[in-house]
């Protein structure tokens, strides 16, 4: 570390103090509150709240939704990123913009989109009702809404990497005799595996925690269509605050776990300037 970095002026001290205050006030203190409240009735109280029938059902639903969203959006994201990075086609810019849409639009609007499509008054509502297929206020609707909001995560991680790597190594593998499968598993995938893992992590974190879009399509049927975040809100609204915080502590735990994995993965991603050579 250089001497200049060690000597800090008054302004720098003020900035650091301000940052520390904001971090403490807005992040550390609330987090501590969540944990404190979760254990306010002791370890036994926390365990009881966490193993409550409805909480477990909500937890299971959230896990199922994440297990649907992560693989689909990982494969879809891989394909979309490769397609956009490697091919020139009309509407390519539009495809990039559409890929970003789920990130820029409010989750509530995303949820309403699905109501518009699948609701009884919606475009496909009558058709679905006639065949007794339930999408809205059921697990398929929740999965779809989660799919929508987590759609861009993997593709967004891969696209810049693919673009900076260029396609010469792929061509080289082809001239050396690689089949399509060998090309993918020996060259394409290994060169982006850490970025894929990073994207998967972001997708999983968002899928577990999504509230807005899921809230619109779920119908809040207790023990059936309440995901963990929705269940927490219900508990809190009914003044079961210790139970709400106990359930929240599960999401906090998942978040912390994601942070740790993220740090490990981020260290292995190519850093700084794109790898041209």
């Amino acid at each position, binding site marked *: 570390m250089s001497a200049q970095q060690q000597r800090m002026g008054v302004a720098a001290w003020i900035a650091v103090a301000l940052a520390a205050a904001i971090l403490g006030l807005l992040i550390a203190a609330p987090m501590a509150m969540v944990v404190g409240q979760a254990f306010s009735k002791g370890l036994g109280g926390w365990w009881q709240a966490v193993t409550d029938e409805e909480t477990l059902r909500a937890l299971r639903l959230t896990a199922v939704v994440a297990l649907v969203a992560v693989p689909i959006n990982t494969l879809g994201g891989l394909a979309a990123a490769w397609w956009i990075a490697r091919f020139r086609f009309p509407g390519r810019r539009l495809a990039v913009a559409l890929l970003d849409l789920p990130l820029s639009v409010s989750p509530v609007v995303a949820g309403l989109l699905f109501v518009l499509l699948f609701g009884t008054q919606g475009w496909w509502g009558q058709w679905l009702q006639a065949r007794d297929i339930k999408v809205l206020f059921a697990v398929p609707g929740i999965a779809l809404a989660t799919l929508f909001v987590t759609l861009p995560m993997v593709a967004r991680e891969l696209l810049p990497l693919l673009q900076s790597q260029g396609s*010469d*190594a792929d*061509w*080289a593998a082809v001239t*050396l005799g690689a089949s399509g499968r060998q090309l993918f598993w*020996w060259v394409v995938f290994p060169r982006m595996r850490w970025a894929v893992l990073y994207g998967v992590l972001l997708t999983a974190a968002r899928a577990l925690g999504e509230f807005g879009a899921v809230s619109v399509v779920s119908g809040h049927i207790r023990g059936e269509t309440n995901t963990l975040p929705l269940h927490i809100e219900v508990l809190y609204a009914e003044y079961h605050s210790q139970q709400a915080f106990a359930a929240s502590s599960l999401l906090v735990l998942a978040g912390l776990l994601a942070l740790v994995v993220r740090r490990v993965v981020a260290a292995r991603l190519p850093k700084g300037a794109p790898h041209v050579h």
Partner: protein
Amino acid sequence: MSIEVSGLVRRFGSHPALDNVSLHVGDGELVALLGPSGSGKTTLLRAIAGLEPLDAGRVTYDGVDVTDAPARMRGVGFVFQHYALFGHLDVHENVAFALRVRKRPDAEVRARVAELLDLVQLGGFADRYPDQLSGGQRQRVALARALAAEPRVLLLDEPFSALDAQVRKDLRRWLRSLHDRIRTTCLFVTHDQEEAFELADRVVVFHKGRIEQDGPPRQVWRQPSSAFVLQFLGHVNLMSGERRGGQWVGPGDLRWLGAPQGPDVAEGPAVLGVRHRDLAVRLSAQAGPTDWPVTVERIATSGWRSELQLRLTNGELLTAEVSGDELDELALRTGDAAAVWVRHGYLFAA
């Protein structure tokens, strides 16, 4: 292996990257595809490898039509400008790639890779990763990788252009000696005329998606087939004028009575091309009756040779190259009057 391409057409939108290109490369030849960027030379190389879809034309290897054969079945070795090594594999596995694809036994792979690394003088580098190597080393790994499966033809796309001048020169000579030993048919793309002339048995000059000239290096140098080739080879003055009564007449009643190098042109508009070293300079006092009077505008000396910028009375600027000794003898300074005459000139119909 011999390669024959005929009537190749490749369009990007309305722009033809290859405009009806036909070329024969004999077995064991080392051919340079030379031209400015965007002239179609890289597109041709990629088309021969099967990496570029074609709008028309056929490609044959030893008389067998491979136009529709996928690139991975063609058995070519391709070397890319920016090496295109596999960054997640070490040098050994990079070189072994083509053998792994073919599922050769491990012992054979190891023996072959060791042999190839010796060939490219990187014996001790098997465990390194590409980002631990210099540019020249990376390109030699790329060469070893391309040679691993004993390709029938070696295609190199601007293989040395990303390297330092000295490394480039060394690697160029090394490639020539490698080719003399293994005798694989070899095509390489370059925009550097010096590289093409030093390395190749035959130089093919590209311009706007067409072959402008095709011949041995000395012939291309001595008999450029067009004003474009002469200009692309560099260090040349080009002047527009016309062929009239056995003379070339330029603006300001500039006349040249000499016989052109190469073919003559018919009466009418004609471009006179004079290489810098073929424009002779003398003092005004010794000027002959057909010399052109000039004023010395600038003298740039780089070691053993000097370039003189000379202004004609019609306002045009010419460049003459003289040796250091000649310049000492002339003792010219900026602003002096002098005279020039054309030692050798080329004429092209304009």
